[in-house]
């Protein structure tokens, strides 16, 4: 079969289009990770953001690929002049200015696309930028749209309508897992594929899993369900008096969570660690990883824990979680929201060092199916498929 890889030496022009190029967040990190990988594989990468972010991510001075933002700041949301506003010159002026800016941004985009060599691909990593791509001249360009969250999560929010409006015409619409892809197909999309996120790197030395520490890494926000984790720990702590729960991350919910922790009398066994940049270091000091999220896409933290050979206990809250963790083999899953079940999984992992070691080692091996090389290979296969 001629399928597997398009000859890498030739390389293609790849455009990665995101909301912003320098925002603090998972998708931006993913965009630059993939840009670096594609560039390393011989492609010519151009990262395009709709606008520049306010809270900036510190990027290295020389990325090795081009980065462009279409707007200096967040563009105004379209507000058609309707009703009494029709009498207001200011409203007309605002709308006129917005349209002129839009025209300029689209022209810039078209110019970039026209300069591309044949076989170029635009990967739209977030839903919003497609509004600009639909206006721009994309002749000869293949367009791949991506969702970085589970189908159920998109379905519940405003992005769903935008996806259904803008993406049926794309060459491919990528979900994070095959299960999410099936959901999109059942929803009436015909161009759906699946593409996992890549695990950034494998730590040299796996965690020894000797410290009696359970760790959790994630923003202290409602979506991450730390309140449920504290409830869970209240059921675990009495049985494991010598174990500690370390909660890494910061967020607006912190005061409430600390209060809850105090009320449950867990202050002695819970440590609030704050934000960390050294995830691998934090994992190296832990023996078990726990994730109690209400919703997830393709959780990176879970992959990183597995890469450090730390076995995980997690709520089975999204297809991405099931895809990463094989329940009972390299980690333990609990029904979402069932804190008693999650406590049970934690008790099993903390109470049995042999189980912990076996699962941890298997996790480190299994998670490598999401290694950068493997994921890059899947991307190359996708590019080849779209060209057939």
């Amino acid at each position, binding site marked *: *079969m001629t399928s597997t890889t398009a000859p890498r030496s030739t390389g293609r022009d790849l455009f990665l289009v995101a909301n912003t190029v320098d925002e603090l967040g998972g998708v931006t990190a993913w965009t630059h990770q993939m840009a670096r990988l594609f560039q390393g594989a011989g492609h010519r990468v151009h990262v395009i953001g709709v606008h520049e972010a306010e809270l900036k991510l510190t990027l290295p001075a020389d990325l090795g690929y081009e980065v462009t933002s279409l707007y200096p700041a967040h563009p105004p949301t379209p507000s058609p002049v309707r009703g009494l506003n029709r009498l207001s010159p200011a409203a007309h002026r605002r709308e006129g200015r917005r349209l002129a800016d839009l025209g300029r941004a689209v022209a810039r985009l078209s110019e970039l696309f026209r300069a591309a060599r044949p076989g170029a691909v635009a990967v739209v990593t977030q839903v919003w930028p497609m509004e600009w791509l639909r206006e721009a001249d994309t002749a000869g360009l293949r367009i791949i749209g991506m969702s970085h969250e589970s189908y159920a999560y998109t379905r519940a929010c405003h992005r769903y309508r935008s996806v259904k409006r803008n993406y049926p015409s794309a060459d491919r619409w990528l979900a994070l897992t095959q299960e999410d892809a*099936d959901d999109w197909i*059942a929803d009436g999309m*015909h*161009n759906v594929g699946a593409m996992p996120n890549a695990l950034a790197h494998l730590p040299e030395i796996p965690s020894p899993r000797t410290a009696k520490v359970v760790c959790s890494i994630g923003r202290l926000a409602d979506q991450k*369900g730390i309140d449920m984790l504290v409830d869970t720990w209240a059921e675990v702590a009495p049985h494991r008096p010598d174990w500690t729960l370390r909660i890494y991350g910061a967020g607006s919910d912190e005061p409430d969570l600390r209060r809850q922790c105090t009320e449950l009398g867990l202050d002695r066994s819970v440590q609030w660690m704050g934000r960390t940049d050294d995830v691998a270091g934090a994992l190296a000091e832990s023996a078990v990883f726990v994730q109690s999220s*209400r*919703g997830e896409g393709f959780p990176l933290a879970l992959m990183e824990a597995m890469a450090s050979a730390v076995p995980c206990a997690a709520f089975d809250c999204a297809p991405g979680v099931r895809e990463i963790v094989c329940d009972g083999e390299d980690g333990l899953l609990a029904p979402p*929201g069932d804190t008693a079940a999650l406590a049970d999984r934690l008790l099993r992992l903390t109470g049995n060092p042999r189980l912990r070691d076996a699962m941890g080692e298997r996790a480190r091996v299994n998670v490598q199916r999401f290694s950068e090389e493997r994921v890059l290979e899947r991307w190359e296969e996708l590019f080849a498929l779209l060209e*057939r």
Partner: protein
Amino acid sequence: MTTPEAYDISCVVVCGADAAALRATVRSVLDQTLAGTEAVLVTAGADDTAASLAAADPQRIRLVHAGPESPACVLRDLGLAAARGRYVMVAAPGERLERHACRNLFEAGRRTDADLVAGRRDKAPAWHKELHARSRVVEDLADAPELVTRDSLSGGFCVRRGLLGALSGAGRAHFGVRAALAARSIALVPNLITTGCAPADPVRDLPRAADAQRDTLELLHGDDALRAARESAFLSDHVIPCVRAFLPLGPDDRREAADTLARSLFSLVTPEALGALPPVERIGVRLLTDGDADGVQAAAYALARPGTVVSPLVRTRDGRVRWSAEHADDDTFDVTELGHQYRQFTDLRLLNRVTHCLRQGAVLAVGGRLVVPLGLLDDRPALAARLDLSVRGGRAHTLSVPVRDVRQEDGGVVWRAELPLTGALRPRGIGDRVWDPRLVLTVDGVPVTTDLLADKSAVPTRATALPARPLLTRLTGDTWQPYVTATQHLAVCLLPRRRAARAAQALAHYVTHFRPARKLKPVLRTLRRKREALHSQRVKLRVYRRILSQLPVSRGLVVFESHMGKCYGDSPRAVHEELLARGARVRCVWSYATSPAGFPDGARLVRRWSWRYLWALARAEWWVDNQGFPHALDKPRHTTYLQTWHGSAYKRMGFDEARHRTRNAPERERLRRAVGRFDHFTVRSEHDVRTLARAYRIPEERLLRAGYPRNDRLVEARERDEREGRFPRPPLATQLGIPDHRTVVLYAPTFRGVPKKGQVVQLPLDVREFAERFGDTHVLLVRAHYMEAASLPVTPPGTVVDVSGHHDVSELLVLADVLITDYSSIMFDYALLDRPLVHFAPDLDAYAADRGTYFDLRKRAGGPVIETQEELLRTLARLKKADGEWQAARRAFAAEFGSYDGGGAARAAADLILGKKARA
């Protein structure tokens, strides 16, 4: 394969006579997003369309010629042999491939390395959708038997070309099944692959399907299970649709079809497969194999209208009911389970076939023949009949014409009527243009209404038309035209035939369909939308928040609601009755969800979410309810909320529910606010305090430890039992027609959620078996959701009573001698009566694992916990003897879960309401 893989997918199309269909298919192949797709057109003899298509794009369209008169399977195999793609697929002319179909199939094939990749086709039956619900790889056919037992692979799949050499069998056997049997692994994907498949014509297609079935069964000879499954699937997928298709066939057509089909079905209908079918289907198939054309049509009518009697049923000596006298000895024709023998004569639906319908002078002469079952005419009763004509669309405008000629004739009733349409039937002309005649037969004074089944050939258009004289002049229509409806019934409609009426009709059509209507319709639509928006929940909510809830309190106004307005019952009713009994000066308002039927006359009734409802809630001094007034409605400052709650908890509730915990913060906050409105919360025991009060975070001072008002009745009944015994039964027994000597069993399972569309819900308990075993001594009251109750089978009168619509469940509890339930909270209440209680919960473990529970029912139950129907019936049979063992457990259960239920709950609640009022 020797030919190199020049393409990714080759699509073989066997050309037919329809040029447009072929073009559509070929265009869909060329339009594929996967560019490496070729079309291989196979023609028998010369075909101009195919040749011109191939000439237009020789790169991607290949032409294969075969000799004329070659059978379709030979043509297909020639095409497959000529294909050059990595995968091959077959499409019938007219079928169109979805634009991304080949790309999706190719991608799935490469991802899974499967030999066969199959996707969905549109308008496929439910089982096919189910099969393709998720992407998966099947390596053992037992995991997806439909691939070979049903015609799942009749299109929309591709096969690795290398596999073609390994196919076993040949000729007419199903290609999909041959490929599936040869494939090492099969990938199933949920993608839509083909659309526009030709609509099935079961009668025409059956002979070919039968040939394919024979050869396919040969292929499956090694696997008896698959073979048997294919034999039954053949009946449900091909033969039964064919039986159904007999309904619209005329006498000659159906006779011809029956002859052909009986021959082609020879030896394909096995007794095992036939025996597994429901009665009417079974008989229809059997009659088809016997070649009985009229019998098959009658069965088709019974299938289209379930519950219709279409044959002269007979009762055998051993009490069974059979289809007809000539089949009385054949078990295949047993229809006892349809329960026609238990129906009242007036409730029967009978087959009434129109034998002739003709104009005779100024009247329409109609005659027919009516089937009368079970020897109802044996003792020569007095017969009378009339024809009722009523306007379609429900208006109660009816014309009755007496039928002069009704007589008995070999087991049926023959009738003949003359309808003076012109003179007697005077419609307005607008809004009453279609009339349905029905025959009302009266046997010894008891009437039964029957619809008229007619063949198109029995109602000739020209020879039946009569002049009409509408009240709004003959411009609205001048002719009465009898015709046969889509459901094969006789009807009469008003038509314009003369020039004046036709012109008026054309004008009316212009006004209502063209420019005037087009101008007016959007205006009306906008107005309607604006009006609806004014009454939308959003607007109501805003008015409630900003204006209504600021209004001053109306002293003495109490708003009651039970189960979100579904019924007048439960604790709110008990409180209401207590207030009435005391003659308290309060004004009571009850809310109802859909219909005010069954609610008390004395109280003011308001529909849930109506303006009056919001007005009442905003001004009320008290809210009394057992489940929750709409969460979005905040309680006004001046209102006190008495939440009586609807049952102690077995499954986890509120903030303890896993499902609730996974909701996001705003949703959880909404529940917290809704629960924060409760000022008083009644509890029955410390168990409630530990579970419900904790789950809803209700503080100690708001708990009303008085028991449930609804249970006062139970406590009182128990005291009466001890004082005077169980008899006489309460008046409800007489209402339901329950004699004193029968044991009353109440079956009240938990509602398991609204079923998905098209899914039939069944009660876990087989009511028919209960009726057979205990019909003489017991009566079963069934209280289920109305959708489950709808599926109750017909049983002898007085053995099974549906009480799902009864408003107050505690009345039923008092009436019952035994309660069968699963894990419904009704068990906690019933225990107060100290009567036998049986838990019938086939899915207890699954439910407990899914929902989470507060305690282990098996350890703490006050009666046996049973998982199978057989065990349940055995337990019921020896209930009196075995009950002694359970008495102690039951009393402990009642004491634990109902410690505060002392009979004074309603009093306490009324004191609370009136006491507050006195202070105010």
